[in-house]
């Protein structure tokens, strides 16, 4: 099947590539661009390990075809963490032991950052609700909820 040319901005850099239509965005980021911080778990939209930002909003990297990202802005965990945007969250995750194997962590951080952007002081219930689409098999979630709550407090409501 015919490959399709795409042009998109990944972590601030313009990328042009020829992609097979069946390739999803997470595979494109990992295999073609070497951005392996985007993890792949279920490939059916359930686990959240492949979360990336598409035009500023968190989406499932496995449920977007790379061809569909043509003309878009994609930000991965590499770009968002290098920009310093996740500092409060990363520190809180470390302090609260909110990760063990780390497989879910990039997706968790991006999702938590989106929550704090929409709601700077979420309740524990709201945190649980918002991360309900990101699976963690190590922590049992309590520590992750603790960390996101602590990050919200540490940033004093200023998460930009």
């Amino acid at each position: 099947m015919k490959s399709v040319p795409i042009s998109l901005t990944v972590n601030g850099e313009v990328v042009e590539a020829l992609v097979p239509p069946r390739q999803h965005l997470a595979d494109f980021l990992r295999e073609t661009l070497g951005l392996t911080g985007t993890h792949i778990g279920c490939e059916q939209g359930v686990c959240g390990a492949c979360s990336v930002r598409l035009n500023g909003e968190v989406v499932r990297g496995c449920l977007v075809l790379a061809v569909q990202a043509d003309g878009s802005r994609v930000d991965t965990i590499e770009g968002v963490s290098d920009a310093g945007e996740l500092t409060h969250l990363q520190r809180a995750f470390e302090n609260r032991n909110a990760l063990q194997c780390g497989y879910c962590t990039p997706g968790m951080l991006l999702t938590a950052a989106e929550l704090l952007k929409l709601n700077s002081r979420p309740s524990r219930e709201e945190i649980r609700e918002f991360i309900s689409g990101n699976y963690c098999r190590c922590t049992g979630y309590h520590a992750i909820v603790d960390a996101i709550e602590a990050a919200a407090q540490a940033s004093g409501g200023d998460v930009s």
Partner: protein
Amino acid sequence: MKAPAFDYLRAKSIDEALTALREHGEGARIIAGGQSLVPLLNMRLAAPSLLVDIGGISELRGIEVQGDIVSIGALTRHVELERSDLIRRHAPLLSSTMAHVAYPAVRNRGTFGGAIANADPIWNLPACALALGAVMVARSVDGERRIPADDFFLGHCRTALRPDEILIRIEVPVDGATHRVAFQKLGPRLTVIMGVAARAEVVDGICKSLRLGWFGVGNTPTLSASAAAALVGASPDEAALERAAAALGEDLKPHDDLRGSAAMRSYLARVLLRRIAADLFPEFLSEARQEATA
């Protein structure tokens, strides 16, 4: 798993997409947000020869109020409905239901038209479309046709849309001061068992109309017309609710699956009916309300 190979066309206009559908026949499939289709592709449960991407066609986006109708473009994303003031004011059933649609990351990308056109009987939005008496507007190269929700959902993930048609927009009625809506479900999101969405009109203590749209019961989203009829025409009180619960058996064809038996679903349907009736008619059903919140 990885999707099977297919060709891809990024349609720049509705006409270009419709022409491609007509030319390629049943091998072609529409993709918009992809939140229903890409999982099916990745699991190889769908194997189209051509994907026609309508995601970039801006005229298919947006929410407008036209008289007593809210017109929702098929490409309007869940997150846009969730945050829309127009929807909150004029079609609040959709606002309150959106939080129960998948996860934030899926709502950022998934479209209302996609949820309706893919018509999975376990999803809540097709049931909401039934409860609201929505009209689906479909277009092909031959022109447009309007399909009432009651005639739209034909089978498991099967609708009245023909292979050469695109769902263009969904029209739902504007709620007035006399309308009430409610939503109830059982089970957490990935393993939701079943639920019901409702829209009623109450004038001077009389229930003038009621539509109850069920999901997770049988192989299509289902309207329970007999149960609703038992609550219409008088005060929707405890006696009417008893008659409605008894009538549910005529309306619903529950199925067995890993999430529950048909017998369990029949029982839970009566539980949900009591809960949603208590939400809709609290002034008549204080007893049912207490039970529901106990």
